[in-house]
């Protein structure tokens, strides 16, 4: 039995509606219709499966154009022959090599984060099931490292699927379109993410935008060398501890050259980027002019008692891709 057929039969065995039809149908026509429906479901899932495997392959092997552009500009800007310039040259060679060989840009293929926008009534359960299958198959093909470990036993079963892995963020919208964005976020950069609770006495950071600035720049200082810089910051001001981090990650879905429509946040983004690049931390923490490639900040409401600044750090190996699905299963357009 093929993978898609297995998935379809699992769907049929779990789908209450199908069961009901099987129990109540007596006529041949009804069985025939049921069979047609099952085939259609199998087709849909096999097409979706292939689309998602291709999305994973490209996300792992190809750096998005907006990120590559900024990396090349940084390389130009560094002093030729410096450790910083030589590091960025290897980075650029690596980007070309990964694309040509269709192999992971970085061996840490990271936490697998799906951001899926779907029409009302879309079957999210089937999507998630198919995506888990796609992740396992993409791992067998070497697009992903065997990267998911049982936190209690320490076992790595090599499938990249388990509790919470991969992660799905579904969002309904009033459009017929299905958009699937994927971020592969390595552990090195995830480990240097930080959450500050203001006021922070040690940083002299109060509950205002200047306090946020101090917290964000402190995170840049602490992350030096460790997160595979030059990196990109996704930041959320406000929210609770969980939504703050979650929203900070969604900022990484923005194009690096976009501008924040909120003037105060736009000014803060530009200021942090400029200031961080004056600290002399440089690529890999070797020293140099390029510490960050971009800064993206959003704000969420908070309760009066809390004031969190949540920072997600993304390494230069910024693996982010997305597709719009046509007929909800076939790739119509690449988003980045």
């Amino acid at each position: 039995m093929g993978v898609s057929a297995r998935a379809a039969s699992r769907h049929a065995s779990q789908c209450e509606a199908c069961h009901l039809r099987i129990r109540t149908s007596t006529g041949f026509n009804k069985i025939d219709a049921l069979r047609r429906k099952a085939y259609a479901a199998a087709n849909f899932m096999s097409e979706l499966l292939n689309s998602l495997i291709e999305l994973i392959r490209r996300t792992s092997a190809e750096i998005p154009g907006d990120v590559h552009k900024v990396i090349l500009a940084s390389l130009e800007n560094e002093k030729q022959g410096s450790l910083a310039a030589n590091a960025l040259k290897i980075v650029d060679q690596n980007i070309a090599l990964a694309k040509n060989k269709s192999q992971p840009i970085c061996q840490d293929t990271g936490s697998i984060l799906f951001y899926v926008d779907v029409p009302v009534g879309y079957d999210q359960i089937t999507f998630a099931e198919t995506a888990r299958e796609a992740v396992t198959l993409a791992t067998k093909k070497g697009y992903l490292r065997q990267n998911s470990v049982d936190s209690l036993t320490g076992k790595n079963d090599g499938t990249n699927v388990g509790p919470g892995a991969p992660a799905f963020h579904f969002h309904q919208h009033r459009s017929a379109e299905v958009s699937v964005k994927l971020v592969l976020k390595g552990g090195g950069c995830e480990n240097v993410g930080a959450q500050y609770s203001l006021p922070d006495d040690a940083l002299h950071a109060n509950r205002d935008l200047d306090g946020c600035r101090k917290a964000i720049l402190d995170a840049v200082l602490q992350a030096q060398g460790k997160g595979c810089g030059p990196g990109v910051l996704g930041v959320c001001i406000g929210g609770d501890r969980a939504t703050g981090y979650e929203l900070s990650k969604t900022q990484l879905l923005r194009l690096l050259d976009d501008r924040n429509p909120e003037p105060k946040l736009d000014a803060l983004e530009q200021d942090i980027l400029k200031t961080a690049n004056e600290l002399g931390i440089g690529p890999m923490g070797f020293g140099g002019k390029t510490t960050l490639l971009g800064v993206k900040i959003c704000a969420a409401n908070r309760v009066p008692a809390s004031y969190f600044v949540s920072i997600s750090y993304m390494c230069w190996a910024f693996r982010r891709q997305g597709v719009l699905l046509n007929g909800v299963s076939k790739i119509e357009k690449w988003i980045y």
Partner: protein
Amino acid sequence: MIKLSFPFSEEKIRALKVGDEVLISGTVFTGRDAVHKYLHEGGALPDGVSFKDGIIYHCGPVMMKQADGSYICTAAGPTTSIREEPYQWQVIRDFGLRGVIGKGGMGAKTQAACKEYGCVYLHGIGGAAQVLAECIKKVNNVYFLEKFGSPEAIWELAVVDFPAVVTIDAHGNSLHEEVLAKSQAALARGFDCR
């Protein structure tokens, strides 16, 4: 560029200084979180593995098993080394390591062990998994594959011209310490101005 070949004698290692760019050739063993914790807790290296005058590589590679049972490495950049800071000094002392390849640098304990026992920290380019996998010409062997899983296993690799930068030398110097001090000072000045 300085060519650094196996065996990595104390003399060769002590001649290196912070900021030197090196190309490493010879046998290196991968070892990361699980291996360091295991050795720290008194575990023994498996037969066939020796770190004497050797280099350990903080790396969890992507390995593809071939039909004949051998492996090809398809991605192999360094992982963040600071997680091994509690253990690294001891592994340098007890197993005779001369080099540690990783990324992000290490702390005072490792720095002191490098000076005392004659070892260097070699910073690879984080994320450059393809460029670095190209330098791995052969996967000689694997140890602890079942025990620790593929990324955490000890992989014995034959590398040629693997690029790295000396960021902690055997004389007590650290580029990480230097850049941290400078960037801290720059940030403090920036805040004063506002």
